[in-house]
């Protein structure tokens, strides 16, 4: 039987299996730590930094930090929450996000985080980068204006042989997600929908269908992101 360890988040005593990642362990203890790049069941990546906590006084990403006996974690503090809010704002200025006309609105985790953190406008200047919309794939469209480089699609969407449909190309600030051309020809509509759903934002969209769920019935029309973990009714 796995060893159970005791740790503290914002002073609250929590229990989890030794070695579980902090993000998951917090969730099991009813505490929500926000994230964009993490997806249950995928190997953690730590790329978005939204889940940053102070672990024994040091800043660490919760999705990649294994829990250990006696850890003291600060998460819902003014300092950490303010930092997370800034990171979310940076995502908005670093891309081109026009939520009112985006088909991911209401399902988008970045937008949902912005609502949770009550961001009406970012405090940083918009960079308006020139980004591409790549539409020459048969089943999907990639809108780089909205991509947050979480790598969820690369990690999750694979064929029956375990080969990824998506990959990164280039480096540094020019890095972007691409879909392997040959793989793209083999992509079914179901896989396209899976890719759309795994994308936390509106960067990957299955073609020819949009806005099929009425406003009021979309995921985050009904709940504030994280409130299901905190088990509080928010809307």
């Amino acid at each position, binding site marked *: 039987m796995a060893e159970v360890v005791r740790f503290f988040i914002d002073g609250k005593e929590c229990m989890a299996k030794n070695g579980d990642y902090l993000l998951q362990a917090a969730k099991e203890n009813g505490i929500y730590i926000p994230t964009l790049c993490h997806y249950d069941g995928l190997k953690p990546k730590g790329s978005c930094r939204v889940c940053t906590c102070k672990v024994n006084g040091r800043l660490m990403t919760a999705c990649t930090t294994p829990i250990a006996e006696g850890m003291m974690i600060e998460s819902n503090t003014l300092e950490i929450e303010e930092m997370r809010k800034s990171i979310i704002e940076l995502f908005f200025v670093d891309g081109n996000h026009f939520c*009112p*006309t985006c*088909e991911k609105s209401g399902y988008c985790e970045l937008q949902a985080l912005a609502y949770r953190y009550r961001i009406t406008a970012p405090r940083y200047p918009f960079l308006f980068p020139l980004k591409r*919309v790549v*539409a*020459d794939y048969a089943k999907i*469209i990639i809108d780089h204006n909205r991509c947050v480089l979480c790598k969820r699609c690369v990690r999750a969407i694979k064929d029956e042989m375990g080969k990824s449909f998506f990959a990164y190309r280039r480096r540094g600030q020019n890095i972007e997600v691409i879909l392997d051309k040959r793989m793209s020809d083999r992509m079914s509509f179901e896989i396209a929908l899976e890719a759309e759903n795994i994308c936390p934002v509106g960067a990957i*969209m299955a*073609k*020819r*269908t*949009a*806005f*099929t*769920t*009425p*406003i*009021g*019935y979309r995921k985050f029309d009904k709940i504030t992101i994280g409130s299901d973990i905190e088990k509080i009714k928010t809307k």
Partner: protein
Amino acid sequence: MGQKITIDPVTRVEGHGKVTLYVNNDGSIEQARFHIVEFRGFERFVQGRPYWEMPVLVQRLCGICPVSHHLAAAKAIDVIVGAGMGDELPPTAEKMRRLMHYGQIFQSHALHFFFLASPDLLFGIDAEPAKRNVLFLAQENRDLAHRAILMRKFGQEIILATAGKKIHGTGAIPGGINKHLSLEEKDKFLKGEFPLNIDTMIQWSLETLDFFHHYEEQHKDFIQSFVSFPSNYLSLIRSDGALDLYHGVLRAVDPNGNKILPDVDYHEYYKYIEEEVRSWSYMKFPYIKTLGQELGWYTVGPLARMNTADFIDTPLAQKEFELFRAVHKGKPCHHVMHTHWARLIEILHAAEKIKVLLEDPDILAGELFRQGNKQFEGIGLIEAPRGTLFHHYKINENDQIIQANLIVSTTNNNQAMNNAVLQVAQRTFKGQKKVTESMTNAIEVAIRAYDPCLSCATHALGQMPLVIEIVNT
């Protein structure tokens, strides 16, 4: 040397524009121009976006009647997704879209008549500007202001129930609609507590018409001769000649009522309509090709629709329509101020249509959307509150928009509004040494009758008011 008068801003219109009057030494008006001086370029920046975004994206042109853009774009995209040429949608989809549209017509016309136009009618063109507004209306005529707000609210609630939001919803999707009406929503609109139910709205629409008739009796001269000039009129029309605000064929009549566009397929509008660009305005000047630039201009909107239609398929509006046609001896009406009458007939018609649709079981259940073989071009037309609205898109094989052409109602009325400005200016400014506020307001009143939406017309950006400028000649 004559002078140049600028009216800047023109108020109680939607969008920003200005009027320039070129005045001769003897005080006569040499020329009058109604300019729209802003530019937005929606047609350009939708290029590259996927076609299914259009109904939601392009409606952002306007906050007053986004439903019209939403539906015109959806109708164009229906063609692209192979859902037919406009009359092959599932019955539920067409009826829900119509319900949305009639809700929009109802609220937009109510907004215009009560909030924008009625202060001129009630307090007069010469009233102080401080009084010619909806706040003073609320002080002076509480009942009218109260009704205005509630009629608008009713229309907006219909939009909310069909589009998901009162402004900028997502209801119409390629090939159909994304929701049914719920039983609760239907019951609320049909039998809701007074006054927010459809029977009260029909009753109030009738009473607003009475109000107009009473007003006209006392101000016959103003209504019938303030501004009146022959024009061609254009609108969609149902194939049997009935007024139809959602779908139909294109009909245009000349000043005597003769058909100059004889019920043609709107998917071929480009064969019949051309747009001219003039250097002094961002708003284009459309005209009927066969008649040429000089003679081919036309009027759209409520007045045009009353002039093109053979009948109205709802009984109360039909009765009023018969009166309208009788007053004008079966010929097209050219009194611009009768646009208000036409608008009120349409408010009544929209309310009656809403009732019929609410009683139809198709809105509660049934297939929501369908798609067929992809096409590379789609055209959608609708009768927006302010007149015929054209959306035309072309896509590439990757599903991206490569070309968009939007001809909005106010653009269609461009020449007509310029003519109205010239006529009022020539009469009002004649022999006057000093330009008074009421003289410039007279010009605004003429423009306002068209209920122009200048933001839509140039797909423009910026402050609301309109400028009037008088130039030395």
